């Protein structure tokens, strides 16, 4: 556990990808094999068995330290993490322990079904032989996530470097279905499990934002242009008579989208399709908020199916005739796709249409109409490109339309969480409505550290009222807020809500009486309906 504790500390402190990878490689070189499996599991979001509720951990920590509940809450607000708050509050440990990570996980697993007294004894005993950093990790094993800025890609790169295996292969292996309690490190990184597993998806190919003039990309004839949609990126996998739907969050969402189950009869075995799930009615793509009604639900009602019908827009084909098809050029993949499902027209699966343009100017004009069809802009994919794992510069670009903007004044501020637990970083903004100010958006800071400090000092000096962690501040600071869309909303006093609001910049040059009005936003809303 000490080694893992050290790894976490190194990962948290380094800002550079190379340093993080070096720390991971170092860890994989020396750590116990069983521990390594668990580290991969934890970093890719697989959770060990958690036989103890975090509320109990908190309760026991409060009990043995005799901390009043409110003071615990204050401490938590400052630290920003429950596991860490508990680790710091506890008195220093009286013993030490050389227990390895996987031993702790197995022991925790064995607590399943035991009574609370036994669990409590185990936890208190553990706390008393772990140092603060180890305790923090131990608590995280029971109640948290290891979100420490290690992407799957980074992890895979470290594993590839350490094992000299192919990174794409490792990515497959760790993204598939495997049980960290059973698999060995060797089996895992060599992908022994994935060949027999019907469900595994491929890593998504992602695009960078286009920051240059499209003309610089060369001849438009070498490019395929499609609309960029704002939905849920997903993969449909059909192998050995089974159908699976994966979302970009690497979650299986097969049950959530019964409309797509007919594909089990349409697709031959050994096919994987990449695409986007969108809410669509009468061939019109609806806003993301409509699609949202369908997400994160265990069961789907008839009403939800009727209110928010979905379509899977197919972008690409990654596997065909049970062969990895990703090394084929896009032109061939697209052709194959059209042959395979080109005639599914009236069904909830359709191929993402290609925008035919003979010049970049013509495409630029069309891009300006994106919003009228609820698209976010244009995707540019090189016809000769392979389907890459993850993000790679050069072959795929997203050419988004500029966001909408509004000038608004800050009226509330709230402290952030995590690394920003001590700064006011979450702000609520308002526009003018006659004599009044009406709230239109809440946004986390898109400001620089220096600006945050400045805003923080302003909040400290100009707080009018306190409501728990929220401060009402003098309406003085004006910010330009960017957003992707606008929708009617009964829940909001303004009668409308902004989608993806974020701070574009601090308008130090503007005074609070120069901000936009609610009427401005209403007009915008009317124009998008």
């Amino acid at each position, binding site marked *: 556990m000490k080694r893992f504790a050290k790894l976490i500390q190194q990962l*948290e402190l380094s800002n550079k990808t190379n340093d993080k990878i070096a720390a991971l490689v170092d860890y994989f070189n020396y750590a116990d094999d069983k521990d390594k499996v668990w580290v991969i599991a934890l970093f890719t979001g697989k959770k060990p068995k958690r036989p103890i509720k975090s509320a109990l951990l908190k309760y026991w920590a409060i009990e043995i330290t005799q901390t009043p509940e*409110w003071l615990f809450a204050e*401490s938590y607000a400052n630290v920003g*993490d429950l596991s860490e708050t508990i680790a710091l509050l506890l008195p220093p440990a009286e013993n030490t322990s050389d227990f390895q990570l996987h031993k702790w996980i197995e022991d925790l697993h064995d607590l399943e079904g035991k009574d609370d007294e036994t669990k409590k004894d185990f936890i208190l005993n553990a706390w008393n032989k772990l140092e603060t950093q180890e305790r*923090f990790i131990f608590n995280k094993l029971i109640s948290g996530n290891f979100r420490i800025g290690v992407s799957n890609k980074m992890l895979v790169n470290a594993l590839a470097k350490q094992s000299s295996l192919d990174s794409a292969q490792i990515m497959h292996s760790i993204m598939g279905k495997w049980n960290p309690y059973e698999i060995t490190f060797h089996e895992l990184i060599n992908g022994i499990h994935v060949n027999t597993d019907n469900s595994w998806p491929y890593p998504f190919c992602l695009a960078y934002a286009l920051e240059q003039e499209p003309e610089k990309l060369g001849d438009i004839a070498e490019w395929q242009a499609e609309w960029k949609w704002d939905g849920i990126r997903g993969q449909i996998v059909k192998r050995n008579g089974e159908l699976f739907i994966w979302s970009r969050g690497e979650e299986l969402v097969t049950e959530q989208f019964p409309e797509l189950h007919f594909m089990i009869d349409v697709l031959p075995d050994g096919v994987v399709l990449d695409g986007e799930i969108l809410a669509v009615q009468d061939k019109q793509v609806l806003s993301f908020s409509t699609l949202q009604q369908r997400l994160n639900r265990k069961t789907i009602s008839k009403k939800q199916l009727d209110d928010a019908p979905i379509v899977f827009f197919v972008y690409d084909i990654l596997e065909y005739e049970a062969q990895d098809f990703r090394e084929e050029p896009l032109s061939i993949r697209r052709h194959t796709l059209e042959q395979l499902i080109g005639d599914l027209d009236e069904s909830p699966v359709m191929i993402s249409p290609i925008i035919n343009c003979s010049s970049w100017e013509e495409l630029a004009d069309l891009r300006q109409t994106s919003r009228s069809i609820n698209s976010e802009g244009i995707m540019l994919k090189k016809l000769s490109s392979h389907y890459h794992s993850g993000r790679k510069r050069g072959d795929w670009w997203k050419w988004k339309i500029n966001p909408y903007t509004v000038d608004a004044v800050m009226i509330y501020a709230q402290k952030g969480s995590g690394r920003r*637990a001590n700064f006011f970083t979450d702000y609520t903004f308002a526009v003018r409505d006659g004599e009044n100010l009406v709230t239109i958006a809440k946004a986390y800071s898109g400001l620089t550290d220096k600006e945050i400090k400045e805003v923080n000092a302003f909040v400290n000096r100009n707080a009018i009222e306190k409501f728990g962690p929220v401060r009402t501040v003098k309406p003085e600071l004006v910010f330009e807020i960017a957003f992707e869309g606008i929708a009617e909303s009964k829940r909001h006093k303004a009668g409308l809500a902004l989608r993806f609001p974020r701070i574009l910049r601090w308008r130090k040059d503007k005074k609070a009486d120069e901000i936009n009005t609610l009427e401005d936003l209403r007009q915008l809303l009317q124009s998008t309906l």
Partner: protein
Amino acid sequence: MALIEFTKRGIYCKQGNFYVDPWWPVDYAVTTHGHSDHVRFGNKYYLCHTLTKPIIKRRISEDLNVETLEYGESITRNGVNISFFPAGHIIGSAQVRLEYKGEICVISGDYKIEDDGITTPFEPVKCHSFVSESTFGLPVYKWQKQEIVFKGIKNWVNDNINQQKTSVLIAYSLGKAQRLIKNLAGDTPIYVHNSIANLNEVIIEAGVHLPKTIRITPETTKDELQKGIVIVPPAMRDSRWIKNLSHPVTGICSGWMQVRAHRRWQSADAGFALSDHADWPGLMEAITATGAEKVYVTHGFTAAFSRFLNDEGIEAAEVLTRFGQEDDEENKVDLAEQNENK
């Protein structure tokens, strides 16, 4: 009638007609220590500890009118007896004890309990009312013994030297820098930024023993620095100068480094929880030892800390002050602001 009141200029003793650590200019400013949030430009007279005098003259202006006291010494102003006791915060830091007609009030400024090896250690003073900071007034802030922290810093430095990296420690010029120098002195040479070297000179001249350090000049080579320990003030943190060193790695020494969120927020390569302020048990210990009936909590987690004291049966009130911004950058801003408002 209470001995002190909190006015918009600062902590005021009406009976004696003087202020303690005022933030606007006054006639007579009793000064707990040389940090910029506690002593400001523009007062007619200053009263501070003997060791603080050369520090504030160097930091603020040579023209200040300064009277001094040793620890345990006292003077009387308008019938109010003023005496100084060690606060253990930084060199020259004093708790100010006021006595008038049997009523005793202690204004502690900033303080810490642990003996840091260079500052005269904190001494509790019995009083009726006590003014306390609460910079780290939450129970998650509990310091490790400094030996352990310094061992960690030394290991970090040695690893860096072996890996051809340059160790840069970020520390306040006044206080933290001297504490580091005293406790890290050994075989590895210590290189200090000008602002620290200047203060060191003054401190050594005043009779404090400080281990030898080397002032960084344009002639100092990157190679020398790579094999040593570099100490610079916070204002230098994101400077090009550091970026140009050979594989620089920065370490921040501050109590805030106890918490991961702050460590990450600071985006340093290493964080060491080393503070010149009392931790939670330290605050509790100090306050209990004074036997005070009433505690005023100034800067820090004032709300939580005063609520806790009240629940424990010690009457406490939160007061709004302008203490608590010891940042070298803030320092400049404050001075500018004050000059404007004169």
